[in-house]
């Protein structure tokens, strides 16, 4: 019985949050890795692209809510997502046209593009703050829980409750659908194949008549969709605050690099590696330990590191992987 309680506590505080967070990171890392694969630079503006996408979705959600539209148990934000994606796609395409294309034609060094993306990051950050402000915004509606702690306890008679927020479940479901769709697109469609060809060998792809501008435009649209979905899911699951998206940049990059930059499978794996390490290392294991080893009563919280050090965890994983396996867990592109 105690073992069951321990398992439930583990699921409740480590596994479920880890899966939801991992899915969000994976979606973010997919965007970073696609940009890296096709446009060949690390996009520092990705966190703020996510914030912009989430913001556009939130504004649309508020409008729908004011009209009385709702999806019943599901959050209205799902209905607003296509509009958010379209707005973000327009923004990144315009950015590419006005900013990045110039450097692409010049064949500028990747590090120059990174600095350029820093400028874009500033502008997007300012834009989001200008439109929606810096405060927390709530836009989640619909059912809050699939299983609440009380129901679970009544159902099973265990002392520990298991809570599954509907946003967490939704995150995972949406992430799975998006990833399947993305891989189908990259592997089965003609456009997707031309993207992969462009990523593998630019010159050869050009020779075989693939239009680079078209590949780049499609990449940006996919990245806008991924960023908006990731940003909205993160906002639904936690809360929307422009600054947190900027801070997501580090775990997202850690995920993409750990998996191997430019490798989509790696980005997903990396997202979960980073998320689970962050959650397990910063979780206070006292409760679980109390059930497993009732005789041992720890004084402290049995927490390896305080929650504020979660950046240190992403960072440590990043360094270890880079030192021992510089191309990432899955083979990424080494430029």
């Amino acid at each position, binding site marked *: 019985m105690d073992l069951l309680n321990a398992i439930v506590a583990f699921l409740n505080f480590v596994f479920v949050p880890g899966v939801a967070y991992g899915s969000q990171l994976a979606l973010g890392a997919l965007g970073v890795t696609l940009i890296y694969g096709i446009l060949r*630079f*690390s996009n520092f503006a990705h966190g703020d692209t996510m914030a912009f996408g989430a913001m556009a979705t939130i504004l649309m959600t508020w409008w729908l809510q004011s009209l009385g539209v709702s999806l019943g148990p599901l959050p209205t934000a799902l209905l607003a997502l296509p509009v958010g994606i379209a707005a973000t796609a327009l923004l990144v395409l315009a950015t590419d046209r006005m*900013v990045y294309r*110039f450097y692409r034609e010049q064949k500028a060094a*990747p*590090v*120059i593009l*990174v*600095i*350029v993306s*820093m*400028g*874009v*990051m*500033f*502008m*997007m*950050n*300012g*834009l989001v*703050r*200008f*439109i929606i*402000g*810096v405060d927390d915004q709530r836009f989640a509606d619909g059912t809050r829980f699939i299983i609440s702690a009380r129901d679970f306890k009544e159902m099973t008679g265990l002392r520990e409750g298991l809570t599954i927020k509907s946003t967490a479940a939704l995150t995972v479901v949406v992430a799975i659908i998006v990833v399947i769709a993305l891989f189908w697109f990259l592997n089965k469609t003609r456009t997707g194949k031309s993207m992969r060809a462009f990523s593998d060998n630019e010159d050869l792809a050009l020779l075989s008549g693939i239009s680079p501008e078209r590949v780049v435009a499609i990449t940006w649209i996919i990245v806008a969709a991924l960023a908006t979905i990731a940003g909205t899911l993160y906002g639904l699951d936690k809360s929307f605050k422009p600054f947190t998206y*900027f*801070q997501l*940049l*580090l775990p997202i*990059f*850690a995920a993409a*690099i750990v998996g191997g930059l430019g490798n989509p499978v790696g980005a997903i794996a990396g997202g979960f590696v980073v998320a689970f390490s962050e959650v397990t290392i910063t979780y206070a294991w006292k409760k679980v330990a109390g059930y497993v080893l009732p005789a041992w009563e720890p004084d*402290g919280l049995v927490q*390896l590191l*305080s929650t*504020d*050090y979660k*950046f*240190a965890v*992403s*960072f440590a994983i*990043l*360094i270890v992987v*880079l*030192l021992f396996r*510089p191309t990432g867990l899955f083979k990424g592109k*080494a*430029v």
Partner: protein
Amino acid sequence: MRALSVRDVLLFLGVFGLIAITGFTQSWNVALGILNMGLISAIMALGVNMQWGYAGLFNVGVMGFVALGGLGAVIVSMPPVNEAWAAGGLRVLLALAVGVAAIAAAIFAWNRLKNAGIVRPLALIAILIAGFFAFRGLFDPAVAAIEAVNPATTGYLGGLGLPVLFSWPVGAALAAGAAWIVGKTALGLRSDYLAIATLGIAEIIIAFLKNEDWLSRGVKNVIGVPRPVPYEIDLQNDPGFVERMTGWGFDPVTASAIAVKLGYTALFLAILVLLLWLAQSALNSPWGRMMRAIRDNEVSAEAMGKDVKGRHLQIFILGSAVCGLAGAMMTTLDGQLTPGTYQPLRFTFLIWVMVIVGGSGNNFGAVLGGFLIWYLWIMVEPLGLTIIEFVTSGMADGSWLKDHLLASAAHMRLFTMGLILLLVLRFSPRGLIPER
């Protein structure tokens, strides 16, 4: 080859003119405030310029090194808290020693067990885990004891109680030490990996300052860091000062504030001139030419027998130390260490805007960028508000759009900084004062 052309001198005069206009139209207090932070920004930009402009190292962890410099100011100049030392000072030092010993043992084992197969990683992991638990076992109770000492006002070990000027080199040394550790692990990496690594280090340093209350009081902030210049109130109570100022026709209260600020200006200016002279001499020496040769073509420099990795580590440490120095100076100027206020946009990316706009690779350019961008950073906010007020003047009072626009005007500065950076990169990629 002259270091400055007529155009460059005019650019400098233009920026100082802008600051002087603030002095005439608003107040000299504000203008001197901008000038002082501009001097500190210029020093930070010099540090980043050493890394990026001389050597092409992409460091986006400036914030962390600046914050470490600030910590240096606290641990040198604050009075020691004797009770806290008695409660757990030595135990904390012992715990840290154990931690360092564990890491050293792990490195030693890793190097010694080269041919031991699977034993090698297992030994490494075993030593690190045992070391971690030994460290936490000693560290946690000691920290709890220190933080229990009068937490509202102290709750930390305090500093050495030395004059605050000593803390400036100490801040630089702390930053240099951190840079050595980062450089040892991350400098061999590609440029964008180095960027992510330094970004991470900076966040970790801030998390460290926010959490380790025994050292830095964390988010409770350390206030009242001693000053190298007199306090306003002492000047106002000094009859000689009041008499002289009234004699010259100044209001003693305003004059005291300005006198204090001028004191800081003199100190900072001395440091900036010294650093600029050192940086110029270094850049024009054989060492500087070697650095630029390495930056422009690592492979050929290596073929010529230059130690590329060693030189990169050297310049990374030097540049970070300069940022740490500026951080200690800034904490001295503010008189407080507030770990919650360190944000990467302000302390890392803004410094990068300064270097790029001023002209990377040119020390004078970095300094000019430091002054100019700091001035804009301060002035864009009121300017943006004025523009928005003008735009919305035709709208009805109380309409939500007008209120929203007025409330959002403060966020214009990030947008403007990004725009300036992109415009300079596009139309004048070598900056206002290009490299020669």
